[in-house]
C-alpha cells in the first residue's frame, strides 16, 4: 500500500482515478488544484504524485517544479495532460524526472504505471 496524492480539478477524473487506486490498495489524498496539493505536501508524505497539467491557480508543471525544487522530493510524479502539444511538454519535464500520461487514458494502464514506479523506487531504496 502506498500513499498517493492525486491533484486534479476535473472531479470525475479525480474520482475514477481515486477509485482505481483504492481498489489497488492504495491510500489516496485528493487536491482540487496545485495550490491545495502543495498544502497537502507540507502536511504529509506521499510515495507517488499524480497530477493534471491544466489546473487553476497552480498548474501541474508548477507543482512538479515545486515538488523537486521547493520540497526537494524525488518521489515518482505522473503528469496527466490533455494538451495538444504533448511533445513540447514531454521535453519540458525531462529535467524534472516525471512521466507524462496523455489523456484520454485507461485507468488500468495508469495503475500499471503506478505499480512499476513504486517497484522501481522501492528497489532504489
Amino acid at each position: 500500500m502506498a500513499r498517493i496524492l492525486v491533484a486534479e480539478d476535473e472531479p470525475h477524473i479525480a474520482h475514477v482515478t481515486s477509485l482505481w487506486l483504492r481498489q489497488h490498495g492504495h491510500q489516496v489524498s485528493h487536491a482540487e488544484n496545485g495550490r491545495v496539493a502543495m498544502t497537502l505536501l507540507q502536511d504529509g508524505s506521499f510515495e507517488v504524485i499524480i497530477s493534471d497539467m491544466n489546473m487553476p491557480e497552480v498548474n501541474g508543471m508548477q507543482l512538479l517544479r515545486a515538488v523537486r525544487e521547493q520540497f526537494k522530493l524525488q518521489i515518482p510524479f505522473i503528469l496527466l495532460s490533455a494538451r495538444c502539444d504533448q511533445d513540447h511538454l514531454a521535453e519540458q519535464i525531462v529535467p524534472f524526472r516525471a512521466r507524462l500520461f496523455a489523456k484520454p487514458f485507461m485507468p488500468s494502464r495508469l495503475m500499471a504505471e503506478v505499480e512499476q514506479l513504486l517497484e522501481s523506487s522501492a528497489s532504489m531504496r
Partner: protein
Amino acid sequence: MFVDDLPARHGLSLVAIFLLGLLAVVFTAVVETRREAARQADVAFSYAFRLLANRLAEENPLASTGDGRKEQRLRELTEFAASGAVTSLRVLDSTRRVLVSLKPDEIGQIAAETTSEDRSLSTDALLEFLFGPRRQPVFVMRIASSGGSVEARADAGEIGVDGAYFLEAQRSNGGAWNDSFRLPVTTSGVGLVIMGALLAVYHNMRRQLRGTLRVADQLRSRKDRITEDLSTLRITDALDIVATTWNQLIDAARGWLSTVQQTSATDELARALQQSGGGTLAEALHAIPEGMMLLTQEVRIEYVNATICRLFCWKMEEARQWTLPEARAQGIGEAVLKIVRESLQPDGTYPSRSETIELADEKNREKSCYRLNLFPLQRGHAPGSCFLFLRDVSQQVRADRAREDFVAQVTHELRTPLTNIRAYAETLASGMFDDPKVITDCYNVITKETRRLSRLVEDILSVSQLEVGSIELHMDQVDLRSLLNDGVRDVRGLADEKNIDIQLALPAKLESIRADRDKLAVVVNNLLGNAIKYTPKEGNVVVGCQVAAQSVVITVKDNGIGIDPADHARVFEKFQRGNDPEVTNEPGTGIGLYTAREIVRRHGGDIEVISEKRAGSTFMVRLPLPESRASSVTRS
C-alpha cells in the same frame, strides 16, 4: 636476361595470365559500365517522368490545386477525368504501339489512390499504375530530350531489345500533344566485347546524359538535406527528390518573379511620385492604410505618406527634409528606422527585405504587429534608393493566434469528456467494481459526458455552418416560456454543482414569437452556461424576458466575475476569450458567444452585454417582433 632463362612453358603461362587478366579487366569494365548505365537510366527516367508529370500539372488535367486540400483536389481530378476533356492517357513505344492505355475512370482511380500531399501529380501513383508489378515493364529506355534525340546506347540487362518508350496524354480539345520523354538508354549489349567499342558507348552515353545529370545536380544542390548521391538512388527515391526540388525551384522562381514584378512596380511608383511632385498621386497615397516611404539618393526621405507620419508622429514637411541618419521616431517608427539603417549595405544599396515587427502596445494591452517590406529601386534610380511599405497586420496576427489557441483549447475540451467516458467505461468493463453505486455513477458520468461531447461537437459544427453561411433557420412559433424553462432545466445540474441559485423571472403573460426554436435554445444554453461558469459558488443567475414595443428582450443576469468594458466587443468575436486568469482557468473555446450573436443576428436581432469587472454581467438578447405584432403591442 631473366625472362630468356625461363622455360618455354613458363612463357606460355605468363601469356595466359596476361590474357586472363585482360579478360578480367574487360569483364569488369563491361559489368561496371552496365551498372553505371542502369543507374544513369534510373536518374534520367526519374527526371523525364517528372517533367511529364509537371507538364500534366500545368495543363491541369490531373493537377492539384497546390493548396493542400486533398479532397478538393481528388474531386477535381475525378471530375476532370469524367468530363470528357481527357479521352485517354497512353504509353506508346517507339513504333507507336500502345503499351498501356488508361481510360478516364482509370485516371480518376489513380487520383483516388493518390496519398501524397505533393502539389503535383502523384508520380508514385502513376508510376506504380503504369509500370507496377501488374503491368510487368519493360525496362530499358532511351531519352530524347526536347533539344534533340539522344542515341546513346548501353546495356541495362535486356540485351537485344530495342524499346524506346514515351508517354502521351491525348486531349480531345485540340489534338494530341505527345511530349516524348524518351529515356536514352536502350540496349546494345550484344557484341560489345571489344574494349574500345564499349568505352566509346560508355563515353557516348555519359556525354548524352551530361545535360540531364547537370540539371539533376543543380536540383540536388537546392535541397540541403539530400546527401546521398542521386545517381545511386532508386527510381522512386529519385522521383521524390526531383519532385521536391522541382517544386522548390518553382516556388523560388515564383518568389523571384514576384520580387521582380514588385521591384518594377515600385520603380514605376517612385518615378511617378518624383515626377508628380506632390500632385494627385501623392495626395491619393496619403489616403491608403499602408505606410509608404521613399528614400532616394544619399538616403534622403523623398516621400512619406500620411500613414507613416501618423505612425511615426512626424510632420510631413519636416520629414521630407531629413536624411535617414537624421530621422528620429518613437515606437514602431524607431524599430522601422533601425531595420532600414541596418539594411543599408556597405556599397550603398539595399537588399529586398520583408519582416514582421511586433511591438507591445500598452494602450490596447495587445501587441501590435507590422509587416515591413523594403524594395530597392533599380532602373534609373540612384544607388541606395528604396521604397518602404509598412502595413498593420495586428488583426491578422491576432486572428491567427486566436485560431491556434482555439485548436489547443478544443483539443483539451474534447479530450476531457473522452477521458471520462473511456475511464468510466473501463471501470464498468473491468468487473472489478461490484458496488451498485459505483456502477450507477459510471453510467451517469458516461451519459453526462457523452452529452457534453455532443454539445461541443454541435458548437463546432454551428461555427462551421456560420462560417460557410450554410446555417438555415427553420422558423416556427416558439413559446418563449417553454424555451426558457427548458434552458434552465438543462443547466440546473451544472448550477447545483456550484450551489448557484438560478431563477426564472418571467411576466405572467408571455406570447410566442416566430423563430428557430433549436437555434434559440443554443443561444439560451450558451448564455446560461457562461453565466454559471463565470459565477462563483453560491452565486445567483436570473433569467428574464420583457416584451417591448418592437421587440422581445431575453436577459440572463449573473453576479459573477464580470467583464472589463474594454473587452465587451471582443467577447463576441470568434475564438476570443478574456485574458483574465479567472477566465482562462475555466474550460472554454471562445465560440459560445460568437455563435449566440450570429444566431440572434440571423433572426434580425442583436445581443449586447452590460457588465463591469467584479460586478456581474447581464446579457440581453433582443429579437424583433413581426410588424403586425409590434403594432398591436404598441396600440395596447
